């Protein structure tokens, strides 16, 4: 009897999410799966067209390019961001004076709204008047016009992502503070030096957090939208910065092809699902969980 009553209370407490999950997650997921097999648009009644959208996607060179751009971006941003965020977190975990100031400074970029980031970096990377090229010229280099050349434009986006790795950094920092000091003391007794302690104590203890951040990083980078959309409208130069989410947005709201966009959305979902499962599988042997 008591069990029954408590069960009822539990569902009541969970009610906001039951509604949110049903209306804003389950319904849209199913609905977009159905829409992906139709020629749905806001303008006309949807008609069932089977797998036509998926067949068209397999031949759509713009789609292929946006997919390749996005994967390259993720391949740059996730590993670089992970290494840098861990390195910075290790630094920020040291016991030296002035730490609140350092922590704030290194976290600042993460706080900058995406659109402001995009605006700022249009100016930093500006070929003629930007500060980056001014510095590079000062040391005798002949820097390219980063934003105007297809070869480079994509990498400015990777640089911005790495610059904003503060969220992951803070989560690593929190993870570091949860490592029991006794483990380090034990390692010291065994004569471990700084690197050995990092390698054999810190990183294994941090591994679940690393996995979490890598997975979140993959999920975020595949969806990258605001910064490229503001910096490179239409994916200029030569569509080298045209990302998956930008093409999807254009199909849904510019070209009024919502069925096609839904098919793209599902492909994005499957890619994320696949990459997440691969990360989990690859990490199986390396991630150390405390058994508590």
């Amino acid at each position: 009897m008591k069990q029954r009553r408590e069960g009822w209370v539990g569902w009541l407490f969970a009610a906001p999410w039951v509604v949110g999950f049903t209306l804003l997650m389950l319904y849209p997921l199913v609905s977009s799966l159905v829409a992906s097999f139709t020629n749905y648009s806001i303008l006309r009644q949807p008609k069932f067209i089977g797998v036509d959208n998926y067949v068209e996607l397999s031949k759509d060179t713009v789609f292929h390019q946006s997919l390749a751009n996005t994967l390259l971006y993720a391949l740059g941003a996730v590993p670089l961001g992970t290494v840098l965020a861990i390195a910075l977190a290790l630094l920020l975990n040291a016991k030296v004076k002035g730490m609140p100031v350092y922590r704030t400074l290194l976290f600042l970029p993460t706080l900058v709204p995406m659109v402001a980031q995009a605006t700022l970096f249009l100016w930093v990377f500006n070929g003629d008047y930007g500060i980056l090229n001014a510095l590079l010229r000062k040391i005798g280099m002949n820097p390219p016009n980063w934003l105007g050349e297809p070869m480079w434009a994509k990498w400015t986006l990777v640089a911005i992502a790495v610059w904003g790795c503060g969220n992951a950094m803070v989560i690593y920092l929190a993870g570091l503070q949860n490592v029991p000091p006794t483990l380090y003391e034990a390692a010291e007794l065994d004569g471990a030096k700084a690197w050995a302690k990092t390698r054999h104590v810190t990183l294994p203890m941090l591994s679940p957090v690393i996995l979490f951040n890598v997975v979140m990083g993959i999920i975020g980078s595949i969806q990258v939208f605001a910064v490229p959309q503001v910096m490179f409208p239409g994916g200029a130069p030569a569509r080298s910065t045209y990302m998956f989410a930008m093409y999807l947005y254009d199909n849904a709201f510019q070209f009024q092809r919502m069925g096609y966009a839904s098919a793209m959305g599902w492909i994005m979902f499957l890619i994320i699902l696949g990459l997440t499962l691969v990360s989990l599988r690859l990490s199986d042997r390396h991630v150390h969980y405390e058994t508590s």
Partner: protein
Amino acid sequence: MRPAKTFWTHAALVLAALVFGIPFLWMLSTAVKPIGETLSNPPKWIPSQVLWSNFPDAIMYGSKQAGFIPFVVYLRNTVIITALAVAGSVVSNAVVGYAFGRLKWPGRDLFFGVTLATMMVPFPVTMVPTFSLFKWLGWVGTFKPLWVPAYLGSAFSIFLLRQFFRTIPNELSEAAKIDGASEWVIFTDVVLPLARPALAVVALFSFMGAWNDFLGPLIYLVDQRTFTLSLGLQAYQTQHGGTPWNLLMAASLLVIAPIILVFFFAQKAFIQGIATTGIK
């Protein structure tokens, strides 16, 4: 720590802070320059005169064409949406996190697994049907699509709070129960006061999410009078055929400043909050 090691730690920190900080200094320098000096080659770090008037100019920019002061209107809209969204996300995620973390109910663990899995669902998949739903409700063009969902929970915050709630000793709830407290009273009077750091983290994340959101406003807001700062900043840059760089940087700085202030004073609680929630 040994002095040599302390020295190198400081050196590395200063170097990192410099690399991360240069874009900000560049923004600040540009924001107070006369327009002529923004296009000097090589660039000048220190302007010949500091033009504070760039800030009021940036705020007033475009007000003649628009018939109102865009920056002030955008700021008001952003504050309204953000405040509603933060309040909603703290309340709803706390309640739902409590259900998952401290109550027993049939189907809980299965539903929690499904909830975690939804973190992998990218926004673009649900974007089109959600848009159709809000259009059907007549909400397109209003703020509602941007803040109402915050009242219905989000997987990441639910997860964060559930983890935190589980660390609070069960004896506290049991004792209150013996005193005849209802589940709601235990939630509000026993558990919530202990959960302040975790709630602060949820509030900060949702503040940043709402304040920075770009895709949401881009899809749902139509009239310039309803734009948010993110949308407005983009409009500054493109619509007016290129806003002068000094005003653009001044406007960006004005958008960023409140967030930086909030974080500077909250950073300790924020990091502790994340540490105690124990993301694993």
